[in-house]
């Protein structure tokens, strides 16, 4: 096609300008993708820490439990429910828990705690709870020893081997009182958890709260978290939806997500500024390119080229330059993103210390999602289209006689 050839030749009539424009788009796309990748990697990493240390990807409760976390909103735990869940595609771990508040007391000290009764083996598969033991030993199904979070333990001045008194209100208002030997101390990355968590095995907790065979939560870990929505749909199709609520991690961690999103706003501003600079750069090029060619536009229109056709040629030129920048930007950043997704960056210095203090490995994986690329392609195409308004307007308002006189 000859018009395409014409556009192609026009692109290269000022090589340096074309290359500079494409290069500026390349830089913007490259940096934007990297920023987005780092940001999302950081975000996902932190969210994963929360998911893996506590919530799991999906939880199932009795309807209404999440809004009112009361033991009276617990549900009867039948094996068939757990078995059904276990058989749903993509579900790796199914952990039943009974969670409720109680008062802990040791010698002179008293403190409110969150008590979690769980299946020690399944819990460990999901949250690797045993790795958080800094003293003593992990839970066993047969013993009614408990694990106490570190900060809580130091507040209560209790150590392994001591006996903790727990007092609370059980299922249907029965009073719950018990004495439990401390068999291990846990360290949690989050100070909030470290201040209030107590773990015991599920039957012990059920007995303590007078809630035989009842649980408040089933926590699920998925093989592929990206397919969470399909999995939720599958779960809903096999359980009684009048009785149970199925919640995704992001529905449960609304506040955490909001905090993290606020922290990533900075990156978005950088990206916006980048694209603004590039936008003005392209606009400058387009203005120069257009004004240099006004006479030529006049010639081709006077010899019989329709203005729409001329405008299309100019658009093709601009889109080509835009695509060159986009494709090269993606081509260069893609391997970097994929490499550091698989081989996370090892953080050093203060950054690493902060991570370690929060019990998070000082690793910084980059994220990669097709949406990043799509987003950038769309942004650049929008910028290019907006700048094209100038030459297209010029073409349609072109006065042939005046253009020829230039």
């Amino acid at each position, binding site marked *: 096609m*000859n018009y395409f050839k014409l556009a192609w030749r026009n692109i290269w009539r000022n090589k340096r300008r074309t290359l500079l424009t494409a290069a500026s788009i390349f830089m913007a796309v490259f940096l934007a993708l990297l920023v987005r990748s780092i940001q999302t990697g950081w975000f996902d990493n932190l969210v994963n820490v929360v998911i893996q240390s506590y919530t799991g990807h999906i939880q199932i409760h009795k309807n209404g439990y999440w809004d009112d976390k009361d033991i009276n909103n617990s549900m009867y735990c039948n094996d068939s429910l757990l078995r059904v869940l276990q058989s749903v595609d993509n579900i790796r771990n199914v952990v039943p828990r009974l969670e409720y508040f109680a008062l802990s007391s040791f010698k002179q000290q008293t403190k409110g705690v969150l008590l979690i009764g769980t299946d020690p083996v399944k819990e460990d598969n999901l949250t690797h709870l045993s790795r958080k033991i800094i003293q003593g030993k992990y839970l066993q199904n047969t013993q009614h020893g408990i694990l106490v979070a570190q900060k809580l333990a130091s507040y209560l001045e209790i150590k392994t081997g001591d006996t903790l008194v727990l007092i609370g209100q059980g299922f249907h208002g029965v009073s719950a009182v018990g004495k439990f030997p401390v068999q291990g101390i846990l360290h949690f990355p989050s100070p909030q958890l470290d201040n209030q968590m107590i773990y015991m095995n599920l039957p012990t907790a059920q007995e303590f709260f007078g809630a035989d065979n009842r649980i408040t939560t089933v926590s699920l870990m998925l093989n592929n978290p990206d397919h969470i929505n399909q999995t939720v749909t599958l779960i809903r199709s096999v359980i009684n939806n009048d009785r149970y609520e199925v919640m995704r991690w992001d529905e449960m961690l609304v506040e955490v997500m909001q905090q993290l999103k606020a922290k990533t706003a900075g990156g978005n501003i950088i990206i916006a500024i980048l694209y603004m600079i590039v936008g003005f750069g392209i606009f400058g090029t387009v203005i120069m390119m257009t004004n240099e060619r006004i006479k030529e536009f006049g*010639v081709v229109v006077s010899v*019989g080229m329709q203005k729409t056709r001329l405008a299309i040629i100019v658009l093709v030129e601009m889109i080509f330059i835009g695509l060159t920048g986009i494709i090269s930007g993606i081509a260069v950043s893609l391997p970097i993103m994929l490499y550091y997704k698989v081989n996370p960056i090892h953080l050093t210095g203060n950054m690493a210390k902060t991570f370690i203090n929060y019990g998070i490995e000082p690793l910084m994986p980059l994220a990669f999602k097709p949406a990043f690329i799509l987003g950038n392609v769309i942004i650049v195409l929008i910028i290019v289209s907006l700048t094209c308004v100038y030459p297209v307007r010029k073409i349609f308002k072109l006065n042939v006689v005046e253009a020829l006189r230039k």
Partner: protein
Amino acid sequence: MNIIEIKNLTKIYDKETIPVYALNNVSISFQSGEFTTIVGPSGSGKTTLLNMLGGLDKPTEGEIIIDHINITKLRSRQLIDFRLRNIGFVFQSFNLIPVLTAKENVEFIMQLQGTPKGLRENRTNELLRSVGLGDRVDARPNKLSGGQQQRVAVARALASKPKFILADEPTANLDSKSAENLLEIMEQLNKEENITFIFSTHDARVVAKARRIVTLEDGKIVSDIAK
């Protein structure tokens, strides 16, 4: 047979402030096969007349009828198409498309007309040969002399098989030898292929070659001599 009929053509510039009558009630007709020059002092209205005739500009008043079509009534898109199919243009400053070769510049017009590729190529080669540029078909305009560029422009103007060719001072930017050469080619095309040329000039030697001389002064025709 009259191919162009101009009736009471008036063009007024700056109508609101100090009106300039670039053309003042001009009536004239042209026939197929003419070799006509428009002369007159600077500012007499030559360019204005040629622009109106080529449908590049609209008159203030009057009619231009080309082959039974009143082009002053055509809408912008129709007018562009009319120019493509009926009128060839040669400009003073050559105005070839810089990124296309001599051959591609000529082909470009036929491409706009939708001529099939094979036909296009044959005709392009033929036209470039007839203007004496058979050996420079692949050169870009910046590799050609002014005279050569203007000959490509003539070939381009012929490409669409127009009813007539308009040329506003086609030799003004050429040295005398190139100018003479261009005129010879135009004359030859006129004689051998019956191509109609209407061109303006200030050059006495060019005027001498014309067979009809129309003189403008202050936007009016003051003489119209056929040799």
